[in-house]
């Protein structure tokens, strides 16, 4: 039994452009970095605009940090940590995401994973 939820084909994801997945009843925004090397997943809900729009934000970088800017009011959120770069009281929930055999997968919550093997421990 897999503890990863397959969302879509990897080819459905264009570098720099987000998509939105329905995952365990939650809306998750998934991004591939501009160079295609990294994947990110954060909550799709914009806490300022109070709408499900984060997957439609632009991604960018400042220094080493990669972020998504809200398409509504432009707050920037670090895609690794979910922290807002413009207001430290704000953050987005982050999700574990991976590309496995041409598929984009999100980790199913509530299970413990061995970080080395990716196998379910308990």
């Amino acid at each position: 039994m897999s503890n990863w939820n397959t969302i879509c084909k990897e080819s459905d994801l264009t570098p720099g452009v987000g998509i939105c997945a329905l995952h365990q009843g939650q809306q998750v925004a998934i991004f591939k970095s501009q160079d295609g090397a990294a994947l990110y997943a954060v909550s799709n809900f914009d806490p300022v605009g109070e709408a499900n729009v984060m997957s439609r934000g632009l991604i960018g970088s400042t220094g080493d940090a990669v972020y998504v800017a809200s398409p509504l009011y432009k707050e920037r959120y670090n895609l690794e940590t979910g922290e807002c770069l413009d207001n430290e009281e704000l953050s987005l929930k982050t999700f574990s995401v991976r590309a496995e055999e041409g598929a984009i997968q999100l980790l199913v919550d509530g299970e413990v994973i061995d970080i080395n093997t990716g196998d379910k421990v308990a």
Partner: protein
Amino acid sequence: MSKQRIVVVGNGMVGHKFIDNLLEQGEGKDFEIVTCSEESRLAYDRVHLSAYFSGSTAADLALTSREYYQEKGVAYRLSDKVVEINAEEKYVVTECGHKEAYDKLVLATGSYPFVPPIPGNDQEHCLTYRTIDDLGMISASVKESKVGVVVGGGLLGLEAANALKAAGLETHVVEFAPRLMAVQLDEGGGKLLRRKIEDLGVQVHTEKATTEIVKGEECRYRMNFADGSFLETDMIVFSAGIRPQDELARKHDINVGERGGIEVDNYCRTSAQDIYAIGECALWGGRIFGLVAPGYTMAKVVAKHIVGDDKEMFLGADMSTKLKLLGVDVASIGDAHGQTEGAQSYTYNDEIEQVYKRLIVSADGKKVLGAVLVGDVEAYGGLLQMMLNDMDLPENPAALILPNTDGAETGLGADALPDTAQICSCYDVTKADIKEAIANGCTDMAGIKSATEASTGCGGCAALTKQVLDAELANLGYEVKTDICEHFAYSRKELADIVRVKKIKTFEELLESHGNGGSGCEVCKPAVGSILASFWNDYVLDDKLISLQDTNDIFLGNMQKDGTYSVVPRVPGGEITPEKLIVIGEVAKEFNLYTKVTGGQRIDLFGAQLHELPTIWKKLIDAGFETGHAYGKSLRTVKSCVGSTWCRYGVNDSVGFAIDLENRYKGLRAPHKIKFAVSGCTRECAEAQCKDIGVIATENGWNLYVCGNGGMRPRHGDLFATDLDNETLIKYVDRILMFYVRTADRLQRTSVWLENLEGGLDYLKEVVIEDKLGLGEELEAEMEANISNYQCEWKTTIENPEKLKRFQHFINSEETDSNLAYVEEREQRRPATKQERIEAVEVAS
């Protein structure tokens, strides 16, 4: 204490300025202000009077309005001049017999044109040049004339000559003195000005004293001169100087000067109790000040004096001027004739380039006393400041007027000016004022203009203001940094040049060759996306371009606050068939879209979800609609009035031309959105003057206005060219827009772009009309390429199944966003507010 009654005689520029100052100064104090004018309209801009001939209307020139005066409680009597003053009982009487009591009386009666006492000077086509009514009469006379003469080769005379020439008349200037502009220019300057003006086709006759005006043989009149020669003409405009309008003062024994003018002291008080005189009717220190800036200073001094502030005094004024006469730059500073004892001078005379400059310096060679500049007036600002601030000349004063051959700054830097130096004389803005504005956050010309009003009057100080701004920013350690963001060490303009010249087609290519590393951001990506679209106009959702697009462009719709989109089909010129209207209605009904008519004469449908967009657009495109680009930084709409096809007043087909323009420029991506409008007559129902490109029909073609906008900081468009045919207008618009696309900053509307453009409107005209940079054809070709690559992005998108994949809320589910909630209002739906959502949940549970 009851209200103080202030009566202002005359509502010209200075009279009005005084009222404005008093309203400002007297904030909280109670005044009853009354103004009487013999003219039929309230104050207007006499300095730019000649603009009337290039298409400006009386309304354009107006400095105030009846509504403004009413709102401020200023009473006014028009076409009713004051004919009597009773200084004992303190009241005035008007021509109509109306009596106005006063506590303080301000005479701002201005001046009247001097008409030499020549027999025959009172005939029908012998006119003067002073008021809007005069201009109306000149316009009428010009229509019935082929030859026109201006008597007087001074500043106003040459302006009048320009007007006659522009109207297509064979134009002559007749001057009594041996040279043109005898007051401001020396012999060398006058000679060159004459040559330049004659090159333009205006014939100049100096040392001519007219003895009589009689019936002509070839023309309507013949002017006979004292030397036996004569000149035939159909009309004559007298502009032989002005005389102070001091009739009232003379009549009531208020002291006047020997040669006219109401004598005033340093507070502009006349010899009569509680009566002041300001502007061109006032005589201070034996001098009349025939410029508007000293008049404004007097107005301020009197307003302050009346509210009890006697710190400010009028202590004379500098009469230096810089202007463009018949397209020739002319400037005169201080003692232009070198009349100061021991004065010496440097002269530079370039007959090839037609430039004349003379610098007059003190006997010890240390100070500037004056200067005359013709053909090149760059040095004006610097020299004027040196004289006004009594600054020492540099080691080699000749360098101040020599041409700048090695590109280095000559003259003095703005840094050398003291804080008290007056930079803008129209609005009395000092260097300190500009520094303060900078300290408060202004970092560009547009900001300085709006904060201080500097260079918003005659504009003569624009170059100097910019120098002060740049020097101050540098002093404050502002690296005047124009980098667009951390990923590129270039301004938008530079990036546009790189993309254009190196033919770069993708963001990656640009980032790799010219970037600083990183992967771009929400600032540089859309900016580069826009630049790429402006020059290559490829499909914006192409795989290589899509990640650059701003939120709205990615889904070709405007995202609303709840994450849904609005849909705006293009309705060129605002013309739409009933069939198409029905289709819009049906689509709106089917998808339950909130429907509203926009300001740009089209229809906005709100509340479409991502997955609905392709179906909605399919239906619209099948009915013949195209995308309206309402989501893009691009051409939005060309608004029009109904024009000559239906309107009783229309003089040209504004709808037809608006449709042509909209179809030509639709899809053009630019640094910011662009709006046009076309009006079918001068009533201007399409409000073209507040658009980036405004077109107004005239009897002879179209007038073109540029760089206006509504929005947060409204700006009226500037008149760019008049009476154009369709082809020329399109050529100019091609050039203007492409030049804007090439040179503007990111998210800079045309209005701010023009305000920051060095050289401003004149420079833009030189680039576009005179093709000074030799770019004209290149710009047109770029526009043609853009137009030929046009595609309806929605049509391309719905024909491409791969692209349509993205138009669903979830990549892995058919479900839609459960967070959307609506309530009904005025029979349509709108997003529920937070409170309404909470209440809805409570009801449900």
